[in-house]
């Protein structure tokens, strides 16, 4: 996979993580749910970090993620991507529900909400404590309203840790017809650049898959219930 050199223009706190604006942009569009790997050569960084799209700039790209503390504005970065399979149905929905099970993952869903609003969709964000600032058009709902919101929606995007899928399935009893609406953006270690290290393995109804290559977005209906 190709690697590109970019310059860090700005680093801004974004909820529990940071937003990083880089220039220039990648030749291929980074879709919500996809990621790119980022690495600062010649520094103490040991492993690449995964960054998610936050928005597009006139001459660059806005990404979000947990950044190494020594990254600075003006620093050169290497980016590799876009990687993985992003959201599909959620990109076309007219009524979209968004939810992150932990606040550190909220930023990864921001671009999805922003693009949905741009195409005139209605967006509901389910959270009990929001850590990022959302556009005013987004309706914020409490977690107690989540299942009702899913029933209203065309599609639902949820960000959660790949270790907590079972917990999520047990605490969210979706009606059978609604499972197909839900796409999960799984938080997993995405480190090896598709060399099959196996740490990001996800069990699906079609066998073990890799979040780095086959995800990190998976359909909830494709994940077995324990």
């Amino acid at each position, binding site marked *: 996979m*190709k*690697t*590109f*050199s*970019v310059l860090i223009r700005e680093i801004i706190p974004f909820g529990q993580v940071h937003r990083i604006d880089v220039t*220039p*942009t*990648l*030749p291929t569009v980074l879709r919500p749910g996809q990621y790119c*790997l*980022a*690495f600062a*050569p010649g520094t103490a*960084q*040991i*492993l*690449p970090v995964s960054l998610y799209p936050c928005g597009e700039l006139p*001459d660059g790209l806005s990404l979000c993620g947990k950044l190494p503390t020594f990254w600075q504005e003006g620093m050169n970065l*290497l*980016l*590799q991507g876009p990687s993985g399979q992003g959201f599909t149905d959620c990109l076309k929905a007219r009524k979209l529900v968004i939810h992150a099970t932990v606040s550190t993952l909220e930023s990864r869903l921001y671009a999805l909400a922003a693009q949905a609003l741009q195409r005139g969709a209605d967006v509901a964000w389910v959270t009990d404590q929001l850590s990022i600032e959302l556009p005013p058009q987004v309706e914020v709902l409490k977690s107690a309203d989540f299942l009702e919101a899913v029933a209203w929606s065309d599609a639902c995007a949820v960000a959660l840790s790949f*270790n907590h899928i079972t917990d999520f399935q047990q605490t969210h009893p979706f009606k059978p017809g609604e499972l197909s609406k839900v796409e999960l953006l799984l938080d997993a*270690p995405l*480190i*090896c*650049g*598709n*060399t*099959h*290290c*196996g*740490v990001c*393995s996800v069990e699906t109804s079609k066998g*073990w898959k890799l979040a780095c290559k086959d995800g990190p977005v998976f359909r909830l209906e494709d994940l077995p219930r324990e």
Partner: protein
Amino acid sequence: MSDPLPLPGALSSWMNASGFLGFTPPASSILTDRAGAFVTPAISKTPRSPARDRGLLEFPGGFLLHTGYPNEGFTKIIKQYAKKWSTLKVPVWPHLIARNGYECSQMVRALETLENIGAIEVSLPADAETSFVEEILQAALGELPLYISVPFLAAWQNWLDLFRLYTVSGIVLSAPRGDLILDDTIVSGRLYGPSLFPQLLEKIAAYQGCGIPLVAGSGIFSIEQGTMALQAGASAVQLDACLWQLSAPTSPSKS
């Protein structure tokens, strides 16, 4: 100072560590033009699922990785990759994990019939009983050079006599094991990172005269460090997690 002569089954003193380049080498890496062998990820006789508690935990100077060595099993892997391996420019070192001598023997005998297999690399757990070590060595001994991969901080020196008896071609000093705590739970796994380099060099210096070539396979994060390991007495170098670091662009960025 030039690199030492390549070990049996290799074309140079440089290669990847098991598990860091997938089952076929990439088009380019920092080992391109330098690699003398290609080491596969761990292969077991029967399929292995990912560990239930798999994960990655970072610490200053490195990270702990626990995967459970998932793989689709020997038969399926050979069916999928043997033809590709036969066309590689460097010899292939399949890295095997076996529960007993029978499994080891079955895999080794099959590999002896394939083209471009330069050597066999078999891993031993740190807590292996001496009887198990001997069972594996007996099973693996055959037509191909045999390398034994051990966590380099384990007491593998207790097995040196057995390694000599079974004419092991080299000892791969690979990732040690350690524990970290996450959410009040102890997580065990393999350790990687540049913080291990000084301890690796100490081991090489202490055992370079043991009569069996040592392969420096942990803690090396640059070509310069690999060269240091060779100067310290290692006969070959395996690069691990530094192969996951992104390297210089392969094409101009879009303006």
